[in-house]
């Protein structure tokens, strides 16, 4: 009781962030395969963060979803979690994408809100590209 306390270690990253950061399954380029390839980009000028989301869409399904990020661990984890959640889902499900949900799951500090919002920009950019292509086709 009078020893040096080890409790309440102020942890900058929660376990989820650490796991997603350490072994991101969806980082990298989209490999060639069936379906059309799309890309959404965004960046945060303040911290120099850059986000690229790349998808292969096949029959209205996000068959492959990959990210590339230059940025902090929270942003990398958020991008990985987004890919994890939406890969294999219908494109339109991407409209459910929620930053506040991500921030909570990953315990992102509020001062990083602006940065995580850029991930939303990248998702929107990706959706827009997919939409445009669909419109062009129709």
């Amino acid at each position, binding site marked *: 009781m*009078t020893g*040096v*306390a*080890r409790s*309440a270690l102020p942890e900058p990253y929660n376990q989820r962030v650490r796991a997603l950061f350490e072994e991101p399954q969806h980082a990298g380029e989209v490999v060639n395969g069936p379906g059309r390839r799309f890309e959404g980009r965004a960046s945060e000028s303040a911290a120099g963060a850059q986000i690229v989301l790349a998808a292969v869409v096949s029959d209205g399904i996000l068959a492959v979803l990959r990210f590339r990020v230059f940025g902090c661990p929270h942003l990398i984890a958020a991008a990985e979690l987004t890919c994890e959640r939406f890969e294999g889902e219908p494109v339109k499900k991407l409209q459910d994408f929620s930053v506040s949900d991500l921030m909570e799951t990953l315990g992102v500090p509020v001062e990083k809100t602006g940065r995580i919002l850029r991930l939303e920009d990248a998702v929107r950019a990706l959706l827009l590209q997919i939409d445009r292509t669909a419109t062009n086709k129709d």
Partner: protein
Amino acid sequence: MKSTHANAPIYLDDAATTRIDPQVAAALSACFAARADYGNAASSHIAGRRAQAAIDTARQQLGLLLNARPQDLIWTSGATESDNLAIIGAARFRAHRGRHLVTMTTEHKAVLESFDALEKEGFEVSRLSPGADGVLALSALEAAIREETQLVSIMHVNNETGVVQDIAAIGALCRSRDVLFHTDAAQSAGKLPVDLAALPVDLLSLTAHKFRGPQGVGALYIADRPGCSVAPLLHGGGQERRLRPGTSALHQIVGMGVAAKLAHDRLAANLRHVTALHERLWNAVKRIPGVTRNGSADAHYAGILNISAAGVEGESLMLALEPLCVASGSACNTQSREPSFVLKALGCTDLEAQSAIRFSFGPETSLGDIDFAGEHYRSAVTKLRAIAPAAAA
């Protein structure tokens, strides 16, 4: 009068410094583990975060002792620094509102000299005298506070006499006049109840080594109230809310936290113990002719007993009292042989002040120590009077 104890000092100078509690020493030493266990608390890596967590715990422990929110406490190097930061810092912080300050003549030098420094900066300082019992009359303070007054600094327990000021009433008065109230609680924290949730105190100084923590670490409480803050005296790395920078001294802070916890747990028992010792010692010496106590017997912390003996010279008395480790005047003043300014403020003559002996004691002091001290004091006084010319003093 060669004492049989000649080689075994008996320490009765707790008001100067106390022995570190073995549990505090153990907790402090535990911080000297592997480097990767405890780093610089400002570092973001695991070793830094561990240090930070230990410091947070210590702040909670100190918060518990004082019934204060941990975030309102900042670590310093001791009460000297806390006093300086509180007084100079608050005066500068509020200088735009007014430049009049109030304190008392019997404060510790760290307080008095902080005010001296402020005077050189153009502040005006009123120094109130206490009564002959050492207690400040509330009416005197009331009369001294003006429209421009920004800060009142009145200590809780006096380090030489043990006299206790009514900081609840003083604080209430200050609050009613929108004046900040600082109290130097170096001699009371960890010994008398100090409940900052209930007391109208804005700034409170304390130091760990007066309640069995390590030397060289203290704290300043700064109430979270509008208009209550301090301009920092030191500038740098941003630690302690930018009010007191420098690498946090992990082991020191951990030690102060544990000392606070122990003091909190044992407060009532320790107070009972020193009260019993006090009565015993006073009963042993009060019937020696010409012996008087300095300071109030009522508004008083029991761990200090200050007495003068007529017709006895102070320096010789100190030597005759060996092997007792006691103080003549404040420990901080013993490098000079000046008669104590605190006792003179209580109306003592130079000779009375010079013959004053401060006995101070704590949980480690035994009844045997106290009985020996009383007996030894009596024979030392008797001996020196026998040597002195009949007319002396």
